[in-house]
Structures are given as C-alpha cells and as structure tokens.
C-alpha cells in the first residue's frame, strides 16, 4: 500500500535567539485509514513536526511527500486546501463568521460552486445543525472544536492533523470529539494526532514518541 504521507530525514533548526536543533532526522510513513499518535514532553518539537508534516512550516532539510507529491512552496496552499484538514487545540475559528461560513471557508477558498451544498450535511455530522447561523464567539469550547472538525472535513481531505484536539475540553466533551475523529478514521481518512493524552494515543494504530529530536515507535 502506498503511504499518503512520507517524511524523510526531517530536520529543523531554530537559529534565533540561539541555534537549537529541534528535529534531527525524522522519518515517518502514514498509510490510508491509519491513525498515529505523536507523544512527547513539552518543548520536544511535536507541534513543529506536525506543522512541517502539515505543510504549515518548512523543514531546515528533508522532504515531505503527500499523496506522492513532494511538498514545496508552490503546492503547499493547494495541498492544505484539498488534501489536509487541521484541528487545533485552540479551535481557531473565524469569530466574526457564522459556524456555517467557517465550515464552508475551505470550499470558498477552493472556489467551489455552489460552496454551500454540503454545509448542512457536515454540520449534521458533527451535531451542530442548530448552531449553523451562530457566530464562532457564541459557541462553547466543545462546539467550537466540532465546528473545527467540520471545517477540516469540508473539502473531503485524505489526512487530518490534530494538535491536542481535546486538550482544552472536559472529559465527556473530549470523548465526543475523539469519537468524531475516529469515525473519520473508520471512513478511511488518516489521522496524525499530537497529544499528551495516553488514552487518546492508545486508540490510534501506532504511537510514536518524539524525544531529543528523533521519533521513536511506541510509548516512552
């Protein structure tokens, strides 16, 4: 089976204020329908790795291939819009837009016509039909994260990236969000999740630990 994501010898060095090698040669393969968890102590570079894999950041050296294409500055925007969905710990909704508008924003960026066709279905999937016309700032934390998941699914991406998706939520709400993510995995999407939550990590097919700039398979 061909991996949907391949990372080879990813290195990242921050030069300011002092030189710091955060990633020292990370290799990773992620296959369709596979969920992997990346764990590690705070400051180890988990989020940096996630952003490099998700094309939001560029490595100092190394290559990332998504769906067989090498990621470069020309393709990054298109890949993020068409093949990747992001879910952040802080949700990152556009507060001045309604839930429906937030969810459909990737479709608008892709200039799909009509962009609103599958909006209600996405909201129904995450249980936010009633909140479609509420503004981001009017939602609770759990609802915001559900809206963020719906937005991530808007253009039907193959890979979902989640950075501490339930980190700011209470237990029950966090469980609901995790269930939603794994429903996506069951539907064939790949999931790469950065987390401190061992329970969430154990639900994934593979667990990696980032330690001293290198990725190790298994829980530390």
């Amino acid at each position: 089976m061909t991996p949907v994501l391949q990372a080879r010898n990813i290195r990242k060095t921050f030069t300011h204020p002092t030189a710091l090698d955060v990633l020292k040669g990370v290799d990773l393969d992620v296959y369709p329908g596979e969920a992997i968890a990346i764990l590690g102590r705070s400051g180890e570079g988990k989020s940096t790795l996630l952003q490099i894999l998700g094309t939001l950041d560029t490595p100092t050296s190394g290559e990332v291939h998504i769906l067989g294409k090498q990621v470069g500055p020309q393709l990054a925007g298109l890949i993020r819009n068409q093949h990747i969905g992001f879910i952040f710990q802080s949700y990152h909704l556009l507060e001045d837009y309604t839930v429906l508008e937030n969810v459909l924003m990737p479709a608008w960026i892709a200039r799909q016509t009509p962009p609103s066709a599958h909006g209600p279905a996405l909201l129904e999937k995450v249980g936010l039909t009633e909140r479609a016309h509420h503004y981001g700032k009017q939602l609770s934390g759990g609802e915001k994260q559900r809206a963020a998941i719906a937005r991530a699914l808007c253009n039907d991406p193959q890979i979902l990236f989640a950075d501490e998706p339930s980190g700011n939520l209470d237990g029950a709400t966090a469980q609901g969000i995790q269930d939603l993510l794994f429903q996506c995995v069951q539907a064939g999407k790949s999931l790469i999740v950065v987390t401190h939550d061992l329970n969430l990590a154990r639900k994934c097919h593979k667990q990696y630990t980032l330690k001293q700039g290198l990725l190790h398979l298994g829980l530390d």
Partner: protein
Amino acid sequence: MSIISLVSILVIALVVWLLVVFFSVTTGLEKVWVDKLVAVTSPIRVQPTDAYYRSYYFQIDALSTASDYTAKSIGEKVETATSDPYQDDFDEELPTFLPAADRLADGTLRDPVKDAFKIFQTLPEIARAVPYEVAISTLKLRLLRHLNNPFDETQSFITQAIYVTNFDEGNERFQKSFLPIRGSDLKNQLEMLTLNHDAIQEDTPGQLLRADQATLSKAWKAFFENTKILALQTPLRGWRPPKTFDNSKLPGDIKLKATLETSSLETAHEAQELRFKVEWKGQQEEIALGPLLIGSFEAKRQPLAESGIYLPRGYQEAGVLMGDRGYLAYYSPTASTLQEQRAPIVVEGFYDPGIFPMGGKLVVASPDLTNQIRAAAPLEESGLLNGINLSLHHIGDADNVKVQLQQAFEEAGIAPYWKIETYKEFDFSKDLIQQLQSEKHIFGLISAVIIIVACSNIISMLILLVNDKKLEIGILRSIGASAFSIASIFGIAGIVMGMLGSAMGSLLAYITLENLHPLLDFISRVQGYAAFNPMFYGGGSLPNQLSWNVLFFVWGATALLSLIAGIVPAIKASQVRPSAILRSE
C-alpha cells in the same frame, strides 16, 4: 480600526473634493478667458513677416499705376485679380533697392497671400480665414444726458487712445461675447436720434442741433422696426401717474405693459414726447414716455453700420450708452506734416473682452472704418497690425493646425513670408496664459503631494490591520488560502478605500459646484464683502462646471496611489507565517 479606516477615507475625500472643485473652477476660468480672447481675435493668427514687407510682391503695388501707387493690405491682396500689377511698358523703371521677384518655374510671381488662403481651404479644422487689420487711434466720445430736462442736462467727454480692429460678421464666438442691451441703452438711442450730429467732429461742439422732423420720424420708424417696447418702468421719482391711475398709488420700479402709439412718431420732437398705451390693473391710458424707463423690450441687434463701433465692457461701466456719438482721431502723413483726421462714430453695443490687458482698449469697428484709419499710416510701419484670423471648429486643434500650416507653407515655399501664432503665443496674452498654466502646474504638483500624503495614510491603516488580523491570516493560510490571495485582500482593501474616498470627494465636489453661487453668496454675506469678484474672473460668475478631465485624473491618481499604498501591507500580510501565529495561539 474602523475609525482609522474612516478617517483615511475622509482625508482622501477631502483632498479629492478640494482638487476637483479647484481644478474645475480654474479649468472653467481658463476656458472662459480663452474663449473671450479668441472671440475678439482668433485661435490662430497668421501675420506677415519682415520678409513679406521687403518682398517685391508687397512693394510692387506702391510702384505700379494699376495699384494706384498704394501698397495693398492682405484683404486687398486677396481681392486683387493680378499678383503682379507692374507693367514694363507703362510704369517707371524699378528702383535698384527693390529685391528680385520670387517667381515660380513658369515665371509667374509667387503669391503668398492667395497661396496661403488656398492652403487654409485644404484643412478641415479651419472654419474661416478672415483678414484683419488693427489701427491705432484716439477715441473721443460725447456723453449727453438728461436732454429732456434743461436743469439736469449734462455734457461730458471721454478721450482715450485705443486700438481699432475690424468686425467680422461671421465670427459667432465674438457675437456670444456681446453684453445684453439695456433699457437705458434704448432710451439713449431714442434721445440721440433727435439730435443732428453733423458737428460731432468739431473740437468743442456748440449748441445742440435738433434733427428735422422728417429725418427724425424716419429714424424712429427704422428704430422701432427692429425694437419693440413691451413695458415701461416707473422711476423712483419725477413721474406723476395719470389721473385715472389715482386710486392706485404707483410706487417706483413698477412695470406697466406698454404699446407704442405709432402716430406719435410723426409728431414727437423729443423722445419723451413719444406716446404709449399703458395698462395698470386693468385700466388703460395713453401717456407720454417722459421720465419713464424702458422696462422690457425685444430688440434685434442690427448689422454694424459703417460708423458703428462696439466698445469693451469698461466703457459701459464708465457710463457710456448705446447711441452715444463721438469720433475716432488718427493721423495721416502728408508731404510736410501729419494731418489729423476724424471719423464720426456711434456706439452700437458692448462686448466682454475678458481680462486681457489689451481688451479694455480694443474697439471693434466696421471693416471700412478700420481700413480707412489703418490706410492713413504706411502699411509697412504698422506691419504687425495686419494679418489673417483663422477660426477653428475646435480651439483645442490650434497647436495641431499650426504644425500642419507650417509644413504646408514650407512645401508651398511661402513659409518665410508668414509667422503663425496660436492664441498661446500672442504678445498681449501669452504672459497671462503662461502664468495661468504655471499656476496650474504648481498647484497640480502640490495636489499630487497632497494625494500621496492622503493615500499613504492607507499604508499605516492597513499595516495596523495586518497586525490586528494576524490570527485570521494564519487560519486562512492553514485552510489553503495562498499568500497571493491574502495579499490581494489587503491590496484590494487599499484600492477600495482610495476609491471610496474618491467617490465621496467627487460627490461632495459635484454638490459644491452645483451650489457654488449660493455658497459664495453666503460666504460673501458672512465676511461682509464679495468672496470673489466675478468681473475680475471674466464675466457674470465663477464657472461651476464639473471638469471631467480633472475627475478622471483624480480618480486615476487615487486608484494608482491607493494600489501602491496597499502593496506594502499586502506584502507584509503575505509574509505572515501561519506556523508562528497558530503556535503562539
């Protein structure tokens, strides 16, 4: 942030308003001034050069019997049948100082005047080509007032050195500069018709001579054939209403519908004895004109008589009226001395010369009278005062037509004989036009700086906006928005702000110009004196037409500058790294 945006837009609106109003008014003023200048002269003048006056072609007339030993003006050269009037077998031998004749290959004399007129006909931009003459003279006007009242009767004189130029009946632009005829003009004309002006050229005209009744009746009938008095106006004092009007106490400044009693044209000796049927509140009465004023009328302007002249506006303001008589004095050299000649004249109207310095001294007379005065002096001594006026369909073609003429004259071999000048180069107007142009350029430069400053406000505002919206930019980048599309948002925001300010400013300018006169009246009332002197600015009032050229320029400049102003923040926005923003959040 929205307050800063609003302020940026308002600043641009204010600047656009200022520029559009200022340039619309100054462009309008320039058009009025130029229109008046070319009305009295023409957009292009073609004048003979020294080479023309030294040429065989010009000098041969003074040496030929067929030309009556008199040099010809350009108008006469156009009319004459033969270019070379000299006859070998009849005229005396030519003097040695006379230059060789400029002959064509076939031996005929080159005719610079006729050749020039042929070229004029080939250019469709030229509407008319008319020879003009300007003569120098002294105008003496005798102003007789209150002839009907021996106690109030006054006589005064105006004497001024003037230029006389010939009237061109076909010059529609000049006819548009005529000042309207006033009731007082008509009444003065009626009064002047009662006098015999045969002695007007005398140094001190003695007792007033009356015209005989037959001549007077004939003159009045001719006058009323072209003039219809519709209403008489009561003066503030000095008039007693008829008894039948007793019950209606008539105040001054009341207009009474009036019809001329034509029978009175045969019997009246004085203008005040002319009788009219008047109506007041349904009552009719026949009354004498007396001290009543002419309230409303229909008067057709008559073709200029041989002794008729049109005076510039300044004379009207000095109290001269249509119908006033006088003479033009000029000097004619004889063998031993200069002899003063006097040609009688009558004022037939007034025109607005605009603000050009020479305008106040330029008297427009009939072509015959102008020619008579100009012919008294040797033509070569008044060389620059003779030439050809070219009227164009569009004044804006002047520069282009000049170039075409210059080329055609060179090809025809007559270029050395002519100097072609557009209205921008006339000696008496170029300083003013250049001053106006340079003022416009300077203000244009200042305006450009003001627009740049106003638009640069957009840069600060948008940079603040980029900083404020970094998270949103990061979110949009994370869901696939390209750096270019993010940059476009801020670039477009810059243009939209610029154009919005531009549109608001233009609308304000339009409203201001539409209400310019009430606005100036208000300012004048507030400050207690006239905000702008309309007489100085060339006519009845300040021009208030929106200048589309200015509007397009300001829109274009604002759009361009606001686009440039939007680029800096747009680049900054496109360089926002989503990883840094989303991580920190």
